[in-house]
């Protein structure tokens, strides 16, 4: 009964939002306000962010929603800098064998000096529902980040501007959305990030997150999103080249969604 209730919720509410896509535990713990951040998981949020990374990084993560096994996501991301460019790849799989959504993305990012990053991404979407069939689609992303003041980064991102969709026979939507936001770095220990997101045919959302480095290799994070109201928390551990990040999202009605990821910097 509980699962049915949840499924109705998920299908009614979150399916036409960008919910199945997973931003990785760092950005999630920051309330998903990642549009102005530079992180390997930016490849799934605002691709321009990977232009700010100095080394190749690979990471993989797992997310479970509301304690329901069937509502889980596996994701992997990769980025590599080549001179002024960066190339990124992302893979995201959501659902169970009877219902599965897979999104594979490739990104090309370029830095125009140290202050301006631009990126274009190409995504391949696959939807598979047992006894109904399969459907495929392509979508694109465009992202930008600008270092306006020494401590302030601004970011902007548009996803699926051409409103690509699966074939004629599915109602399943690939959301079109625009995000912009700012990331202010108060000190080496502390940053606060914000983002406004508008999804076409859905309500606008405001998100904010804070990251505080307790000591050099332990970061604590918290965030909120306003619409729908959710609270987020998480931490990150960094030991030499290995990163472990953990996040949990709390929805007032549906409950907790934990996620974890492991990253390696070459």
């Amino acid at each position, binding site marked *: 009964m509980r699962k049915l209730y949840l499924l109705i919720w998920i299908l009614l509410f979150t399916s036409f939002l960008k919910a199945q896509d997973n931003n990785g535990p760092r950005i999630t713990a920051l309330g998903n306000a990642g549009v102005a951040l530079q992180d390997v998981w930016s490849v799934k949020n605002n691709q321009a962010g990977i232009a700010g990374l100095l080394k190749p990084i690979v990471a993989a993560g797992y997310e479970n929603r509301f304690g329901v096994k069937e509502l889980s996501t596996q994701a992997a991301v990769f980025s590599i800098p080549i001179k002024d460019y960066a190339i990124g790849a992302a893979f995201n799989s959501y659902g169970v064998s009877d219902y599965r959504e897979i999104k594979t993305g490739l990104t090309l990012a370029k830095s125009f000096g140290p202050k301006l990053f631009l990126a274009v991404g190409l995504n391949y979407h696959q939807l598979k529902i047992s006894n109904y069939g399969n459907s495929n689609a392509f979508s694109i992303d465009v992202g930008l980040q600008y270092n306006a003041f020494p401590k302030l980064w601004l970011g902007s991102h548009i996803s699926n501007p051409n409103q690509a969709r699966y074939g004629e026979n599915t109602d399943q939507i690939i959301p079109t959305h625009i995000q912009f936001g700012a990331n202010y770095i108060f000190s080496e220990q502390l940053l606060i990030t914000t983002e406004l997101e508008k999804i076409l045919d859905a309500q606008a959302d405001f998100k904010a997150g*804070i990251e505080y480095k307790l000591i050099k290799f332990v970061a604590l994070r918290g965030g*909120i999103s306003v619409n729908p109201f959710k609270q987020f928390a998480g931490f990150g551990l960094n030991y030499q080249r290995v990163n472990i990040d953990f996040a949990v999202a709390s929805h*007032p009605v549906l409950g907790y969604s934990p996620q974890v990821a492991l990253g390696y910097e070459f």
Partner: protein
Amino acid sequence: MSFKTKLLLLFFFLLCSKISFAQQTDDPVIEYIIESVAANQTEDYDYSELIDRLNFYKRNKINLNKTSKEQLQELIFLNPLQIDALFEHISLNGSLVNTLELQSISGYDLETIKNLLYFADINTPTGFENFSFNKLFKDGKNDLLIRYSRYLEQQRGFSSASNTSSRYLGTPERVFTRYRFSYSNNIQFSLNLEKDAGEKYWNSNNGQTGPDFSSASLYIKDLRKIKKLVIGDYSLQFGQGLALWSGLSFGKGADIFSVVKPNIGLKPYTSINEFSYFRGIATQVNFGKLDFTPFFSYNKIDAGLALNPLTNLEEISTLQQSGLHRTLSELKNRRRISQMVFGGNLQYNYRKLSVGLTGYHSNYSQDFAPGKSLYNQFDFTGSSLNNVGLNYSYTLNNTYFFGEFAHSLNSGVAYINGLITSLSPIVSAVLFHRNYQKDYYSFYNQGIGEGSTAVNEKGFFAGLQLKPDRKFELDFYTDLFKFPYLKFRVDAPSTGYDIFSQLSYTPNKTTRLTLRYQFQNKQQNDDIPTFVNTLSFVKKSNYRADLLYQINKSFALRNRIEMVQYQEENKTNRYGFLAYQDIIYSPLSSRWSGNTRLALFDTDGFDTRIYAYENDVLYGFSIPGFQNKGIRYYLNARYNLKRGIDIWLRYSLTQYNNQQTVGSGLDEIDGNLRSEAKLQVRFQF
């Protein structure tokens, strides 16, 4: 009325109001402090105790070199990290030699220092050094204040047409007499006498005679091992207010640090709230790192009684908190039951650690009747209750941890844990989690939460304060709350959240712009008539802009615009609007000072009412809520007759559009306006 016309009207007021009124103001520093903590309080809450306290310290300044944590906490605007930082500074560098030193303490910005030095200094005399009774009467300060106020229109309860069973038996004026004697910071005597409108000057019922409300206390401080001693009326405030907290407390407000309660302990009770205080004797004795506070109280309180048909005994159906005794039935319930409370608190303080243990027993002369509805099934029954509580606070580097665990014996528990942390010189954060069970009982419970008491609630609060420089300040919080059991008008477990943000810009000492946005989403019964009530979400958004600026040495102006939007599922949105213009006249050298306000309000009823703080005569306080349509006007004037004698006058008027009557029940007035006059005289000698 469209928004545009309202704006035009506002400008019209601005032009008209240039006629120079010459009146008084309350203290702007105190007003600002109160408004920052009072954001979410209801209109009838009496803040006179806080105004009283701040005014006392303004006159008898705290000695920062000899003060205690408890005393600084009474100044509510200092957060625990700032208080600890001050003591750390003194223990490292010795006593403060110059007030400029405060600027070098972490967490002290200029605004805080300015406010602190308003109530404190570094070398004011304290203690019983060279004490003698001659000195007591020579150096002691007396303060006598008398206030008289009444509505100028007749309320229905006073008209001769009403029969005696449903009319006010007393006179329509409200009279308040306040006397204080203080010797340095060490001896205070307080006496308050009050009658409300409709009450008699002299009551004789239930075998008691006397003024309607009288309260007195004698307070002695720092007499050898006795840190505090109160004989008479007192309040007790321990931990985070779960187990034992009487008197003044604050909820969520613009000052995000005010959610953390200051562990003040014993205080004399000087307010005219006729509820939630102790009467008897209490003391705080110091044994080095331990402080012991035993107390005993016996009092009569107001209650409604009902006969239990099974036992044929009278049971308490309601405790009455209003303190109004105007009609026969209200007088019947006046001081109808007796209440005995005794217990103690043991507090251990070592450096930055503080742990307190509280235990007390309360006993009532009658049993509490079980709740009749489903939502109050878990309310307290019986006539006696034992409470215990454990509270702690600890400062580690830049973080202050606090919490309390409370238990009512043989029933539920309640606990809260949280922290305040200064993440960088610019950014501070407050987090706390709470869990209050539905069957946790305490008669002196004022734990922080969405509800006014710590019962039937779980929640998580996260707040952030950004102060990039001394001009800007941004406060932001979100609070998620869940009510695991039913509540009044909520027939199922429910949930909700609260988002608050405020930006203030202070370009110079006399100008301040404040922008505020608040959004609340809660569940309550929908009023669709079906067999069972179902819950629907109710959303309320609140927008406010406030501008205060000085135009010359004598005149300051203030404008506010506030809007409320109220959305209920399946209903049309309702809106509320309030705008006002203040003129504040406070010359440096004149016997006259004063202020005046013209406000316009236009709301779609009770749900969209808007609260606004009003200036009043000294120690007077009001945050009226405005609903329907109309105009509000008031004028305050203060005249300093001679040294030690001040006179205040206040006239206020509310005129409603398209209304035949104002108020309801016995308070109803024929016509569309209600006006009030107030006169107050103070003698200081």
